[in-house]
């Protein structure tokens, strides 16, 4: 007890503060950081105020109600130049979402095909898929967009010489190919077929893509209602089937039933109201097409470039996802007596998806963000309409760029929240 060495030595005088004291250190660092941040924010604010008044730029969001005064080449909702900047913002946002939506669908399909092809035993297919991946991934997306727009689409024929896409050109192509290699006798049935199917419904030329337009007549809403009912019923059946399977082990053909319902119910409804839907087929009149929907070439170029570029990345994700499922899994499935199809469907793909989905979502986000590059070819997306034209006209850089960034940020945050929820759902449950 009297041994002084065992008791803590008294702290040396005049050194009550020590840099090695974590509490002190953390508060010093954080206070310094807070001071720097506050100073930055204050000086940004003060400078912005001074600069704006010096340059005579208005501030605030009042400009959103002003007349825009410019036209937009692709509008999904009614719009003309007398409408407001706010309306133009909406038009641009919808255009961004449109190209992102179709781009994601196309990129997923192409990416999965190429990714599986890279794992093929067939060396020719494998080499082709590898070349595709290397080329698309190693060229800048902006380069690809400009290539498709300036070089490829501009080199397409004029509307009068449009290329038709459909069965007729395929059949007549086969016929002319056969007669070219000296099998003229075999060509006749194909040219007959080409005559039989009539003119194609889809055309592509240097002014874009022309598609048939579905025209909904009286009573079409019934078909839509039938479709909705079919979807809801299939959903209910799926839940019931799952419950029954877990309770009794009995299977139910959920997919086939659902598919049948979704096809048959709307068809019956359409028959009941006398098929009110028909396709308005585009027809060449003079120098351009009349009827149908024409898709602007900027959209086509952007869509092709974005989806082929992203597909290269998706292919690599799919390939690594499939490779990540160990061979023992499919061997075990085989030894349980599962055949090839069920093995893939029930064992390999669910496990591969767990690896594939997170990076896949980030590719979807990248595609959405890359759609802003459409500004280089004049596609009227959110960025071109708002941060381009509107910024030029109003000069309100702070509000406009902040709003544009906020839109992309919201898209990113919503996607990552959904992803987090999905990841939690499919995560391995470990004991």
């Amino acid at each position: 007890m009297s041994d002084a060495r065992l008791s803590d030595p008294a702290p040396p005088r005049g050194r009550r503060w020590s840099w090695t004291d974590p509490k002190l250190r953390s508060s010093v660092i954080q206070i310094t950081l807070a001071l720097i941040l506050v100073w930055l924010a204050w000086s940004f604010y003060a400078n912005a105020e001074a600069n704006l008044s010096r340059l005579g730029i208005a501030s605030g969001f009042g400009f959103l109600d002003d007349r825009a005064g410019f036209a937009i080449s692709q509008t999904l909702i009614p719009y003309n130049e007398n409408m407001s900047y706010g309306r133009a913002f909406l038009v641009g946002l919808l255009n961004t979402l449109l190209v992102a939506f179709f781009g994601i669908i196309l990129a997923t399909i192409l990416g999965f095909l190429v990714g599986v092809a890279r794992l093929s035993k067939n060396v020719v297919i494998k080499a082709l898929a590898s070349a595709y991946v290397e080329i698309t991934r190693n060229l800048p997306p902006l380069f690809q967009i400009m290539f498709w727009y300036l070089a490829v689409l501009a080199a397409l024929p004029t509307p009068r010489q449009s290329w038709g896409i459909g069965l007729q050109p395929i059949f007549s192509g086969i016929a002319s190919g056969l007669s070219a290699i000296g099998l003229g006798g075999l060509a006749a049935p194909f040219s007959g077929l080409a005559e039989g199917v009539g003119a194609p419904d889809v055309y592509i030329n240097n002014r874009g893509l022309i598609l048939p337009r579905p025209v909904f007549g009286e009573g079409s809403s019934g078909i839509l209602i039938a479709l909705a009912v079919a979807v809801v019923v299939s959903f209910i059946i799926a839940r019931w089937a799952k419950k029954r399977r877990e309770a009794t082990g009995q299977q139910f053909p959920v997919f086939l039933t659902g598919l049948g319902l979704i096809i048959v119910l709307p068809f019956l409804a359409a028959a009941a109201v006398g098929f009110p839907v028909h396709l308005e087929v585009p027809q060449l009149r003079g120098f351009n097409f009349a009827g149908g929907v024409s898709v602007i070439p900027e959209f086509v170029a952007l869509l092709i470039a974005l989806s082929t570029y992203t597909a290269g990345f998706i292919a690599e994700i799919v390939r690594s996802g499939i490779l990540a499922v160990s061979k023992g899994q499919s061997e075990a499935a085989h030894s349980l007596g599962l055949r090839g199809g069920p093995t893939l469907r029930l064992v390999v793909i669910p496990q591969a998806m767990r690896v594939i989905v997170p990076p896949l979502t980030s590719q979807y986000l990248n595609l959405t963000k890359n759609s802003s590059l459409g500004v280089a070819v004049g596609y009227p997306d959110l960025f071109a309409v708002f941060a381009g034209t509107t910024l030029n006209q109003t000069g309100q850089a702070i509000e406009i760029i902040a709003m544009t960034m906020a839109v992309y940020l919201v898209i990113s945050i919503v996607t990552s929240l959904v992803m987090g929820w999905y990841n939690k759902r499919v995560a391995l449950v470990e004991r």
Partner: protein
Amino acid sequence: MSDSTSGQALSPHAFVSAAFREPEPPPTSDRGPLRWARAHLFGSVPQVLLTLFGIWLLYAVIPPLVRFFITDAVWEGTNRNACLPADVGHSVGACWPFIWAKINQLTYGFYPADERWRVNVVYALGALLLLPLLIQKAPYKRLNAIVFFGVYPVLAFVLLTGGNFALRHFLLGYLGFDGLFPAGAEVGGLSVAFWADFILSSALLALVAAGISRAVAGPGAGRGAARSTLIVMALLGVVLLAADVNFGLVPVETRLWGGLLVTLVIAVTGITVSLPFGILLALGRRSKLPLVKISSILFIEFWRGVPLITVLFFATYMLPLFLPGQLTIDGLLRALVGVALFASAYMAEVVRGGLQAIPKGQYEGAMALGLPGSLMMRLVVLPQALKLVIPGIVNNFIGLFKDTTLVLIVSIFDLLGAMRAAFTDPNWATPTTLFTGFGFAGIVYFVFCFGMSRYSMALEKRLDRAQRH
């Protein structure tokens, strides 16, 4: 029992072979090119169809490409007439004279012709310094890295811009003490006011640092803090001196830069800036201090959530409004700021992945050895973490290199922008000019990106091997 292993002797059980038998060769149907072709090309009907489809695709793509770029291409000429099918007499592929005519514009932009040697020196020095860094066996790695990341950027900066910046104010000047120094006096082209200001500011900073350290960490720490501050200020002084001295180089404004020069300047700046900042942000994100952590997360997620083009617009149109009015920033520098912010956020996430992969035992081991936090990071954690994420870092570099094309939207002419400008030249308006230009630019981008990705794969393999031993 021992004689049964000798092979010659009979086994006690005569029906058991005493020696291993040579394996039989596989049946003939399982060997040779035929067998290979069956396994890889013609195994089943769908396989045959796929092979035929693939061969047809190759046939449809490769011969036209070869025809376009080589056999039908025009190699010599002085104007568009050389590439017009009507004048040549056959169908014309690539119009290479167009590229030869524009090659200076594509490599240097509008950099004055008499000064292009400076760009060439920068290119050559960069290649000379980078090559031994990439080759594993080359000696003097540390010195090489210091020269490449420390000396070379300053040298390149002075060479490309011309240096001789008329520096007028340092810290005290900006704080409003201009009156202390004689304005306008110069010694050898250097402003007396600036350098007096610099030396005085450095001394004051060192004193302040010493004072703070002394108050916080005790009397022993003051001297060290003063010394560190002076070393940092001395390095900064050398850089400033290099920028201030008149080497007799003609100044070249950045708006004259263009083509591959701009592409490389943006890519290299982005790469060198993003790595240190990315590491800092990643450490910040894993910090236990709530304010540091939250501000790192906000910074990273904000820049990662928006497209680069909005970041460039932010840097070009919005940032100048946030800075004092008299401060005008060069257009290229604005783009560089945008690229650096964006690339740092992405780099931070890559580095964070590496930090998370380091097992806790490594941290605990370092602590048990008594290493303080900064040394633990520098000597134990970061070397392992960075090694793990080298592929991710290189992937980031590839992405950054591809993203440099976006500056053409804020009117800076990189390689792609210079190419697009070249397309508008009526002297070279031929049907194949566009395809030739895109072909050439595509090859350049592909060579850089593909080269980087292959290098990273080789590196990854080597590190993997080293890890297993």
